[in-house]
């Protein structure tokens, strides 16, 4: 990855397709998308459910591999790397925020936030300090010993955001981050996400079906039936 002075990570999807095979049948989720996401951009990906927008996000975050096509981080092709190298890239360069929070059950808020740093081999004390800082910055400083089951949806999503930021990634990927929240917590979580993006200038990709949410983004792309609809 080439570094320049801007902190974010640029991502390029080059003619990617993703075809799932379910009991011998081909189910194309992405039919061929080429998309460049610039550094520091806040990109909204909108589309109805089943349009392939989440798959697009997962391909960008190396959680999944395209059936054809390539994914580049900066100038480096990354989709064909072995699982272990992709894990390291996810750990260092990507932060995920999911619709259903995906906190680890029976684990405290602070342990969740520390986890990316754990896989990076950061010392226990440094992990704790950094996690505490992040929890405070998302307004969860007083809840660090709470288990995820003891937190409301909005609070869980705040913890998840803190976890996504723990490794200081260049790319933050949010998959319907407000989808499971009531409107009040939804707007505060959204504010939080966009505020973070604005301050840190990291690249943000926000998948949503909500046009209101998309309004906050610097750019919006629409996915329909696995294809990009204008840009």
């Amino acid at each position, binding site marked *: 990855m080439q570094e320049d002075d801007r902190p974010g990570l640029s991502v390029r999807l080059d003619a990617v397709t993703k075809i799932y095979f379910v009991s011998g049948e081909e189910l194309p989720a992405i039919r061929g998308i080429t998309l460049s996401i610039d550094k520091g951009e806040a990109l909204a990906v909108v589309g109805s459910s089943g349009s392939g927008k989440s798959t697009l996000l*997962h391909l960008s*975050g190396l*959680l*999944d591999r395209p059936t054809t096509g390539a994914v580049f981080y900066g100038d480096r092709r990354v989709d064909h790397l072995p*699982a*272990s190298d992709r*894990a*390291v890239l*996810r*750990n*260092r360069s990507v932060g*995920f925020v*999911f619709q259903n929070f*995906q*906190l*680890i*059950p*029976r684990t405290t808020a602070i342990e969740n936030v520390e*986890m*990316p740093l*754990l*896989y*990076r*081999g950061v010392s*226990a004390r440094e992990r704790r300090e950094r996690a505490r800082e992040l929890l405070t910055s998302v307004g969860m400083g007083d809840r660090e010993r709470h288990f995820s089951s003891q937190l409301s949806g909005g609070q869980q999503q705040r913890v998840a955001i803190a*976890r996504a930021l723990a*490794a200081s990634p260049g790319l933050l990927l949010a998959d319907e981050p407000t989808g499971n929240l009531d409107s009040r917590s939804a707007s505060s979580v959204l504010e939080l996400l966009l505020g973070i993006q604005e301050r840190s200038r990291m690249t943000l990709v926000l998948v949503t079906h909500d046009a209101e949410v998309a309004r906050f983004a610097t750019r919006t792309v629409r996915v329909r039936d696995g294809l990009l609809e204008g840009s």
Partner: protein
Amino acid sequence: MLLVFLGLKALLRNPYRSILTSLGIVIGVLSVIVLVSIGLGAKALVLQSIQNLGPNLLVVIPGSVTDSGAQVGGGTDTTLTVDDAQAIREDCPDVWNASGALRTAAQVQSPQSNWSTVILGAEPNYLPVRDWHLAHGGFFGPEEEASAARVAVLGRLVASRLFGLSNPVGKFIQINHSPFRVIGILSSKGQSPMGMNQDDMVVIPLSTLQSQIMGVTYVGVILAAAGSPDRVDDAKREIRDLLRLRHHIPPGGRPDFDIQALSDIARTANRLSLILTVLLALIASISLFVGGIGILNIMLVSVRERTREIGIRMAIGARPRDILLQFLTESAALSFFGGLAGGVFGILSILAIRSFLGWPAPIPWEGSLLTVAGATILGILFGLYPAWRASRLDPMEALRYE
């Protein structure tokens, strides 16, 4: 190191399941250690009683005996005599001493009590041949033997049964209603390899037993002691040649006696108890193996149950090998701590067996360590497949798993 810690933490999150899972290993290790200890105890017991009989001892028994050993005293033929014993004593250079002996069962009475026991008729040199000593009093000599005197030397157990704590030397007992004067008490000798309590007997002169109680002229057995353990084989050959000559056995003919060296019996007994120990350990290993399968089962369930957790961990940067190590640590810890607990309980059980059953079970320290190590390796082996499956999960599918 951190990931090892992670695995341990997951176990603590589910303490009851962890304890129940390792219970199989606990029981497996416990049974291996205890059964091996019991086997070793059996071996020690056999060797000790053989040592008690004297390692130099040769036993000549009459009658044709199949060659599988352990039939000492079984011969019912009446071809051996006191003269044979004397000839062995005098003509076999590698025999240091020998004594004929004959036994019967009889009721023995003291003024206070009575006891059913073994009456052993022996020659005066019986004690040195058996490497046996007196606790009190004396033994009978050639005069008593020659005159078939009614004197008796009591075994430890018989003395206490008949006379309690008082000293019986000089008092009279009745054997088959004939009075015998007690002249000595034997020191305690314990069990013979054939399981007989050697303290439960009364020794009287051989001639007295033959002529006054049984009315026979043969001896049941001739015990011969070789000069030293390495002369046992020579002594055995000399006795055989001598007796064949005396009994007029033609060359190649089947002898009417059999000679067994205690060292042969010791070898056989040693081999048998080794087989016993190995067999017990094998049986116990099966339970250890079953414990390992328990771990395999629980780890598979655990991986399935935590599929989403694995997906999350992968999404935030856990490499396949991080996941592998985490689950492997869990199964290794389950089996290691289970094994450790099994080792501790096993050693406690051995101590209990020793104090409550009086079995001389040694604590097999090395074996215990080996078993605990083996259990840990077993746990890692059985944890390998579930951990591998966890590490090969697709992060995307794992995240979607409900």
